[in-house]
């Protein structure tokens, strides 16, 4: 017969723990769970195992191996006993997560809700194999339980047939991110956060405290970090870049579209911006420096310098090959531009026209010579009308001699319309 005990973290914290021979070992201060950092748990339902328990006795803290512990419930009271108190060293428990210090009452990411929620309690289950954390309680009922008035209130409301809302989220669907205390050093990779859209992740990072924010951001790889940074509010962008080491910051800025990087650098102090530009690859930093020269209301200031340009003698097949090799961002593909040998813009080609054509067709046959373009020093206000009138997803930007400099994408135009372009 297997005994299963389910319990809440709040109900066992502070309990006195005894050895099987009756010796008092201390009060339960915290439970440490494994973090599954090596990725073997991805894809399977993940219930982290409780690895050790922190006990306090007379002011001394000890960490004991939880394998020897049993949690049982006798007549609605919990008791914890320990068969063999093996001390766990700090190195062994380096990777473990503390439930009370890191999870309870802290904010965690609700992956399905794509936002931060506060943990009111943790639900655990104890079976013969061990004790596992199953879910977090983020609902009102959990709150009331912690305060201690849950039972009377539940009874009171049940008289009116009203149930107090309770909300549990399974461990798979949450990610702990709040490492705001100074002495926590963890090497987690926050894998589950990869399922979130960069925009949602940006919102979440902005809501976190200063340390969690820096820690979480530094654990993202450069591509993802660039995506997320793009979506953040200007103040947060500055905050993050200023607190990153120069080389890492330069790497992230390189992965962003040049105009976005230019916007951020513009907000930094001059000497710091100069340092970053020097650290970046010269091609990218040249682009960025040019963009920095544009004034705020000019088209050039929101221009993207990544674009695809071909000669009119190229074939559809060649274009597709190049696209597959370069793997550009999605907005670069909205329109493809055709230039002559001196770099002057002749025509444009939409992705639709490209895809419906046979591979051997030359671009000259399908390109649109009556293309719309704007100059880099034109005012921004005219752009919205143009995009709407001609149903464009991106507009090419040319210089004085009609040479192709870049393009403006619809996303940036909408941002400008919504007034999100930050004012100094």
């Amino acid at each position, binding site marked *: 017969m297997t005994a299963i005990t389910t319990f809440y973290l709040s109900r066992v914290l502070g309990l006195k723990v005894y050895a099987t021979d009756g010796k008092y070992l201390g009060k339960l201060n915290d439970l440490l769970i494994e973090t599954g950092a090596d990725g073997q748990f991805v894809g399977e339902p993940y219930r982290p195992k409780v690895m050790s328990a922190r006990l306090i006795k007379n002011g001394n803290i000890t960490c004991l191996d939880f394998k020897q512990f049993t949690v049982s419930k006798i007549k609605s009271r919990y008791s914890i006993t320990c068969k063999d108190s093996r001390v766990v060293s700090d190195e062994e428990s380096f990777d473990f997560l503390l439930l009370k210090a890191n999870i309870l009452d802290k904010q965690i990411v609700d992956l399905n809700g794509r936002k931060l929620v506060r943990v*009111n309690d943790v639900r655990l289950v104890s079976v013969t194999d061990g004790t596992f954390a199953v879910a977090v309680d983020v609902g009102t009922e959990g709150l009331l339980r912690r305060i201690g008035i849950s039972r009377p209130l539940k009874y009171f409301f049940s008289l009116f047939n009203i149930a107090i809302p309770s909300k549990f989220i399974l461990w798979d669907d949450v990610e702990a991110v709040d490492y705001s*205390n100074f002495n926590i050093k963890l090497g987690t990779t926050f894998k589950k956060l990869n399922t979130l859209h960069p925009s949602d992740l940006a919102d979440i990072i902005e809501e976190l405290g200063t*340390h969690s924010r820096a820690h979480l951001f530094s654990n993202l790889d450069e591509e993802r970090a660039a995506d997320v940074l793009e979506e953040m509010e200007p103040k947060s962008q500055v905050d993050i870049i200023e607190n990153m080491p120069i080389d890492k910051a330069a790497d992230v800025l390189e992965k962003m579209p040049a105009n976005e990087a230019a916007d951020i650098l513009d907000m930094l102090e*001059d000497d710091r*911006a100069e340092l970053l530009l020097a650290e970046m690859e010269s091609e990218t930093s040249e682009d960025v420096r040019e963009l920095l020269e544009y004034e705020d209301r000019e088209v050039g200031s929101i221009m993207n310098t990544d674009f695809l340009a071909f000669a009119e003698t190229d074939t559809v097949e060649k274009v597709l090959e190049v696209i597959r090799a370069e793997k550009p961002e999605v907005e670069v593909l909205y329109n493809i531009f055709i230039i002559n040998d001196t770099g002057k813009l002749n025509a444009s080609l939409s992705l639709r026209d490209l895809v419906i054509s046979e591979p051997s067709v030359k671009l000259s046959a399908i390109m649109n010579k009556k293309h719309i373009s704007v100059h880099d020093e034109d005012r921004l206000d005219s752009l919205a009308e143009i995009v709407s009138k001609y149903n464009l997803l991106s507009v090419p930007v040319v210089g004085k001699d009609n040479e192709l400099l870049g393009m403006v994408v619809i996303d940036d135009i909408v941002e400008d319309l919504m007034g999100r372009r930050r004012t100094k």
Partner: protein
Amino acid sequence: MLAIKSSRKNIFRNVAIFFAILGPGIITGSVDNDAGGITTYSVAGALYGYKLIWTLIPAFIVLIIIQEMNARMGIVTGKGLSDLIRENAGVKVTFVIFVGLLFSGIGNTTTEFAGVAGSMEVFNVSKYISVPITGILVWILVVKGTYKIAERIFLIFSVSLLMYVVSALMGKPHWGEIGTSIAHPHMEYNSAYLAMVIGIIGTTIAPWMQFYMQSSVIEKGLKMKDFKFTMIDIVIGCIATVVVAFFIIVACASTLNVKGIQINEAKDAALALKPLAGFLASQAFAFGLFIASVFSATILPLATAFYVCEAFGFEAGIDKKWDEAPEFYFLYTAILIVSCVIILIPNAPLIKITLWSQVLNGMLLPVVLVCMMLLINNKKIMGVYVNKPIYNIITWITIFILVVLSVLMIVMPLFS
């Protein structure tokens, strides 16, 4: 390319930084002079003349220190005070504190509507008309989201409180007497006097303002390296508060106390402005009181609902829609309704309610301060920015004195 800095650019830069950082200190300073403040200082001056002015000096020092701590905590951790309390004090303690904060919030909002009712009575508008209408207008203003503009308008109007300065000076105050009463603090050990002292401290250092200050610095994205500008902002705000308080007390002392006039209604307090405004004194006072009350009535219940929701993990903020943050909107609306209803009770003693809500502030203050002390001295939370010893000493002394005064005030009547 990127320009080389010149010293001229430096000066402009510093001024620009200052104006960008400006705000939290000055706004909290202005909201401090709300209906509760004006009433408390007026009654203090009317009842006790210059005798209570000395309390402003310790209040000023403590106010600066507390606001500095909140600003520092907000900038270093990037977290609001309610978040920090919830994360470190556990749910039970959080519950008790925030229920207290909720009651004090209702009390303060009630005070603002008392101000609305009292000031409109000077214009012979019944409170049954002025209060509901103001309540509904404030609710619409906040929920429909244009309150930031309203905030700016009110800030400008609150400059009208400077009327008290002029009126006080015109009332020919006895500077010698003022000087002596500051140099020799007068202390009476009866319940009424103690309540007055606690009320003055409670209205000058309102607990909810600490939460507001900490959130403001986070919202503005301030940094520790610019902290000296933040301090300037805080000090200016505190000076503004205390200067206006000083002159309100002096103005009332010179005009009302000498004639032995007690303040039972807002109309009585208006007489303090007679030297300046002559027969228009009542109207001028009523106008100032009305503006201050509406300004605070927009901010206060909003802040209270926000911080209580934050502590309990509910979504909050006017940038969220009703169904995204139902608890927040419900709480906000409830606070407004309860406050209006209290004021609308026939023959409600408006002045008494106002004074006691400020005393409640003063009693809740030590609790919030203790929490702050535990947080701000915690190396894990603040790192190298923990309190310097002098801050700890001053704050603990303040907490001790406040607790002693509160206990005495409650216990005294039992012995008389």
